[in-house]
């Protein structure tokens, strides 16, 4: 039987979100950052609540107090780190080691937190992960890819996405990711190839035979060291405007090139991996599709960047909305019926020690 297609619809409105975004920032500033937790929830709820499938929207239910607790904890840890390391620098490696073990735990809790408080049709999502797996996929695999000169890095990303998908639930049904690692290797290979071609084009346009460019660059670099010393507060005098202009221009050019590079790379990898992930994802008898176009997304990223600069940041809310709206408009799900998912809500209420785990349900994402 042919399954019915349900496109994902996004009904957010730029001007409406602009007002919400700036009221959020204003209240966050006036409350010295305390409101930022509420702002985060409203922000997320706006996107979830204006995304719908077959006429039913998503919702986000996190309690801002818990997010605030998470932020206070993170800030406190940072202060402790700064103070302790500031006075006894030798202890820094110990902290790094602790961090190495703590980071996967925080990643796990943050994903769980966000899934648990997300719902569709008033049925919650969930994420049932175990720490050793997260530690293996997020720490051991990426670190060990150093020994393969990064060649096995796509495999680490593949395992992360696979584990994340397969441990995610909607009601009492698990998601299933049926993809293989091949597409991940191909994506990163093509992305790297794209970069190499780009660098080759840029370098050849500088005409390598003529060493003038490198001479200019070396000179500009030396001026850069001079400039950074001069711009140090305690220096007597800065020759800024005379010597720096050349350096700033070259540095600016390199800077712009790197921004373009990052945008290109992330748009390429994001597009391919998101499409692949969704096209190979299943939930009970539902399957998904995603057809984001790389060039369209790259165009959105670049035009967003230009407009944010020209409007001195005022365009940021529109930029966010545009990117999300485009990505969602490329996605659909296919199903015979969407009414048969069973909630686990009643089971959850009986779990012992919920109070304690509730306290640990902190969100660390800023």
């Amino acid at each position, binding site marked *: 039987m042919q399954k019915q297609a349900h496109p994902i619809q996004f009904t*957010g*409105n730029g*001007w*409406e979100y602009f*007002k*919400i975004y*700036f*009221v959020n*920032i*204003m*209240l966050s*500033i*006036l409350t010295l*950052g305390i409101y930022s937790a*509420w702002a*985060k929830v*409203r*922000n997320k709820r*706006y996107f979830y*609540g*204006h995304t719908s499938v077959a006429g*039913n*929207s998503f*919702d986000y239910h996190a309690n801002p107090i818990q997010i605030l607790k998470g932020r206070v904890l993170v800030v406190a840890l940072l202060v402790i780190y700064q103070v302790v390391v500031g006075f006894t620098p030798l202890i820094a490696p110990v902290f790094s080691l602790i961090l190495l073990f703590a980071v996967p735990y925080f990643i796990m809790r943050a994903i769980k937190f966000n899934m648990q408080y997300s719902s569709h*049709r*008033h*049925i919650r999502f969930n994420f049932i992960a175990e720490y050793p797996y997260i530690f293996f996929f997020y720490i051991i695999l990426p670190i060990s890819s150093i020994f393969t000169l990064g060649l096995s890095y796509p495999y680490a990303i593949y395992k992360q996405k696979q584990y994340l998908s397969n441990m995610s639930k909607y*009601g009492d049904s698990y998601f299933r990711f049926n993809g293989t690692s091949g597409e991940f290797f191909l994506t990163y290979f093509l992305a790297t190839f794209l970069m190499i071609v780009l660098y080759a084009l840029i370098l050849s346009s500088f005409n390598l035979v003529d060493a003038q460019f490198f001479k200019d660059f070396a000179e500009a670099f030396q001026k850069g*060291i*001079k400039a950074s*010393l*001069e*711009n*140090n*507060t*305690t*220096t*007597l*005098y*800065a020759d*800024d*405007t*005379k010597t720096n202009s050349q350096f700033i221009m070259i540095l600016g050019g390199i800077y712009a090139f790197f*921004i373009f590079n*990052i*945008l290109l790379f*992330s748009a390429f990898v994001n597009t391919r991996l998101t499409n692949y992930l969704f096209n190979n994802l299943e939930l009970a008898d539902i399957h998904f599709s995603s057809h984001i176009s790389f060039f369209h997304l790259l165009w959105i990223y670049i035009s967003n*960047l230009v407009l*944010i*600069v020209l409007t001195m*940041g005022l365009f*940021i809310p529109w930029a*966010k909305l545009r990117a999300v709206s485009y990505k969602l408009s490329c996605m659909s799900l296919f199903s015979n019926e969407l*009414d*048969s*998912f069973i*909630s686990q*809500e*009643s089971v959850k209420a009986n779990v012992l020690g919920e109070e304690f785990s509730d306290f640990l349900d902190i969100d660390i994402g*800023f």
Partner: protein
Amino acid sequence: MKAKLFDKQSSGFDRVEIEIKEGALHIKTAEHVSTYLLSEITFSSRLGNMPRSIYLGDGKVCECEDNDFIDKALKEFKIDGGSGFIHHLESNSIYILPALFITISVIFLFLKFVVPYSAEKIASSIPQNIASQVGQGSLEALDKIILKPTKLSKEKQEELRSDFKKMTQSLQDLPPLALHFRFSEEIGPNAFALPDGSIIITDQLVLLSKNNNELLSIFAHEIGHIKNRHAIRMVLQNSAVLVIIATLTGDATTASSVLSALPTMLIESSFSRELENEADAYALFVMKKNNISLHHFADIMTRLSDGYEESKTQEYFSSHPITSSRISKFKD
């Protein structure tokens, strides 16, 4: 009014008619009517045009897309519908300009007054032996990259050291000061100070000077940086700027963290110019105390800037105030 009724056990729902009257919510299905007292149910807060959830208390949820209908009923029965005030702010276009204005002025006032004031208070409360550790090793590092041993004669060095000592012996609240001479073609004529009391001056600047009083005026400026703990204050202020910028752009796209580089640079340069003015003011004080005529500082600064006219706009991008405004204060 049309609504959906979810039982929260499954993803299915029933289409129902709801009505709010006499302090209660009435839900009509094809078969029967159930009634919930408004005091026993909760409404989700309004946000944009997302559907409103009504939590019925028995685990069921009613969802209604007509926000105005719900708000009217809530108002009529004086029920708090969550963050009504916030929605009021968010949905009225007339508030957006004041909101932007308040946001920008609060950030401005914070950067202009709160950050420098607290940085000064914190920096002055740090004991000297700890303050001295900031930037330790920077002279050694600079010696490797860009500084070479001095080519000045022993006599010239001794002469300057003894003048320096004479000028500084009456100054209070300072770490032990030390004068270092270095040759550097790349840096050219310049001088700088480290928090532990080291003052470094290039041979090029010594050669540019016409008399020792000109150099003493520069030493006085550098001592001003040390005395007022400028290196530490700059570190504190710059980290505050980073935190503020990160808070503002935190949940935006990654690209915006790159974009914030320019405003960060402008703010930090403005902080730096403030501190330069403070050091100049201290130099003024030391020179008057030692009966060194003020024009000496103006003379060497003029020679340094080579008569180059800087414009006011260039100043915004510079870590130092324009020379003409600096020397205008050093007229006898």
